[in-house]
């Protein structure tokens, strides 16, 4: 690895970390699309800032662009408050308009601006190390490393200082207000942080990757844990891992680093989406199927209890009377047998003592619905789940 490669990876990791922290809160506060809006609408801010400062890494430009981000949020909220359109429409109206202004500004001044819309959307991480920061003649590293590093430091400081307030206002706005914290200040603080991070990161990785790095790691972490601290740590980790893998994929394919980091994020998300324990697609489908069979079992047992006569309790009767398919009736029958709920003599099914108790309790539960104890009841009676 050359020092340039190490620097690129370092920048990518720092960007991933800096994005993951506000991203987690945006996802939890159901404001993920705001990050998309901000990442687009800072463009006019950047262009105007560039006209004024002539320098893409000037702190003034970052500040101006961040202000544009906050203005976007304020505009969106203003339109929402008028009640003329729904919240999501407000977002969808504001950012394309601002972005268009930015694109037109660039196009109109194409000769004096070394800004390229493609670069805005994609960034060029590969060139980041060549823009060096020199302090009194000494080379101290790439500029964007310093920019994103200081943003990360500020974000971390804010996070640690206001962790309690952030947590409270994210999960219980009402309580936060009664306790005297101002959710409004925290809200705009978070928005400002997200804007600054977007601006700082976008130079290196482009607007779209900023969105991906904010939302995807947080979404993955959200599928894996319900603890805020763990979620923060996990999303930072996911961001860094995909930044590193993404870099090497891009190196191998000779393609855009930002695009490849996003793709790695996408693949990782697909994995988590499918396989996350408890909340992933497969586990959800499995749970739904189990629940379905268990409900069928209960229906079946109730049927048995209601019918003393043998003709109603014949094995084949299941198909006819309750109108289940063969496979389903077999799996229900197997489950009941395994759990000692029924016994079968000459194809005649009868409830065992255990089956009777379970059915009675289940009826009680269904009629009174006093306690949400059906799962606890299942644990008590079932040896095997559906």
């Amino acid at each position, binding site marked *: 690895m050359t020092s340039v490669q190490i620097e690129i990876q370092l920048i990518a990791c720092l960007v991933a970390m800096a994005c993951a922290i506000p991203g987690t809160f945006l996802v939890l506060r159901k404001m993920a699309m705001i990050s998309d809006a901000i990442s687009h609408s800072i463009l006019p801010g950047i262009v105007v800032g560039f006209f004024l400062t002539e320098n893409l890494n000037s702190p003034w430009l970052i500040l101006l662009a961040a202000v544009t981000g906050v203005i976007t949020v304020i505009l969106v909220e203003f339109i929402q408050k008028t009640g003329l359109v729904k919240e999501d429409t407000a977002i969808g109206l504001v950012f394309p308009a601002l972005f268009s202004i930015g694109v037109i500004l660039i196009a109109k001044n194409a000769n004096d601006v070394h800004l390229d819309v493609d670069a805005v959307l994609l960034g060029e991480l590969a060139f980041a190390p060549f823009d060096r920061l020199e302090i009194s003649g000494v080379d101290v590293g790439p500029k964007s490393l310093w920019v994103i590093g200081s943003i990360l430091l500020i974000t971390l400081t804010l996070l640690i200082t206001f962790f309690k307030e952030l947590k409270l206002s994210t999960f219980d706005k009402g309580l936060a207000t009664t306790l005297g914290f101002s959710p409004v200040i925290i809200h705009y603080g978070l928005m400002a942080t997200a804007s600054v991070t977007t601006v700082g990161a976008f130079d290196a990785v482009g607007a779209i990757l900023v969105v991906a790095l904010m939302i995807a790691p947080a979404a993955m972490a959200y599928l894996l844990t319900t603890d805020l601290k763990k979620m923060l740590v996990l999303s930072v980790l996911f961001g860094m891992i995909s930044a590193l893998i993404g870099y090497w994929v891009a190196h191998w394919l000779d393609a855009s680093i930002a*695009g490849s980091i996003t793709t790695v994020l996408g693949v990782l998300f697909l994995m988590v989406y499918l396989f996350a324990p408890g909340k992933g697609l497969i586990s959800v489908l499995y749970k739904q199927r189990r629940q379905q069979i268990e409900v069928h079992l209960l229906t079946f047992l109730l049927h048995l209890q209601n019918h003393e006569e043998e003709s109603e309790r014949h094995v084949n009767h299941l198909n006819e009377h309750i109108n289940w398919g063969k496979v389903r009736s077999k799996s229900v029958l197997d489950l009941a047998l395994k759990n000692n709920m029924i016994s079968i003599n000459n194809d005649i099914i009868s409830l065992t003592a255990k089956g009777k108790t379970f059915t009675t309790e289940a009826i009680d539960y269904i009629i009174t619905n006093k306690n949400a104890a059906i799962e606890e009841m299942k644990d008590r009676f079932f040896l095997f789940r559906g």
Partner: protein
Amino acid sequence: MTLSEYFSLVFNDYTLRTITLGTAVLGAICGMLGSFAVLRKQSLLGDAISHAALPGIALAFLITGAKNSNTLLIGALISGLIGTFWIRGIVKKTHLKSDTALGLILSLFFGFGMLLLTFIQKMPNANQAGLDKYLFGQAATLVESDVWLMCIVTGISLIVLLVFWKEFKLLLFDVDYTKSLGFNTRILDVLITSLIVLAIVIGLQTVGVVLMSAMLLAPAAAARQWTNSLGVMIFLAAIFGAFSGVLGTAVSASSNNLSTGPVIVLIAATFVIFSFIFSPGRGLLFREIRYWKNRNDLHLHKTLSFMYSIAKTHDDISHPHAVKILNNFQGYTKRSLKKLESREYITVNNAMWSLTQKGYNKVVNMYNQQENND
């Protein structure tokens, strides 16, 4: 070329006519279907779909190696549909909310698309030039077959809309009722979503991936302000869309260096701002005027009830009092006095006022529900 030159050329010049027709039809279909997106609170779905279409375009190019816009559009359509249904899968099967799902699909698909695009760009001797136009749109690349395609898609969507008009309307405003009537909401939902995806995909070439969502939303959001009827709204949205398409093309054709997409979006945004402010029913301006009138009415009522509190101490309610004694009261101005007089609640005579019977009744019934506002 200036704007006036443009308009004189539209009817003669083949290219200009094609482009103008194309953007007009595109604006119309986007406005039409966008109305559904806006009313179903799926506004940002358009944004996600248009971004999600990018990898489809790139993949179609990689597989076929051809730059035929129809092949690329089919790729876009497929990947847009995959994105849409993945979003639904995420929202339905996990506890991630719809905004997260939208943002995820949008950024992940787009990033993947950009990866493919940069990969294509670095391929030797590939005629990749022109794929960029799908980012910001370039109406100048429209040819007659594209316009025909747009017209066909518009025709199909119009027919579908007319055939399922009643069902769509029900689905928009009361999903549960639709279900209980026995309509298959799932199929209807898939149908309308697919139409929206289709509209987005055919617009990509003209407006571009990034700004397509505004093309869908802005005409509908503007039309919403002028009416409360679905049919009228869709019609208006189509008109607004077509106008922003034509005007946008005109402006961008008459100056150098301007992509069509941003200009169309800005013009559509102007329509929205105008509608937000000046629509008579919901607009901000008339709303403020209404509030202002209400406030004035309240002041009048306050003055009137103060007069009543003085007048009721006398046997004759029309006993004249000096205007001066009103000076202590805040709500009173010369104008409000005149207004009260014009409504015949009081009569004013030489700096003396007296309550009329009508004014007296008004105050007595002021806080009764039965009293009609005048």
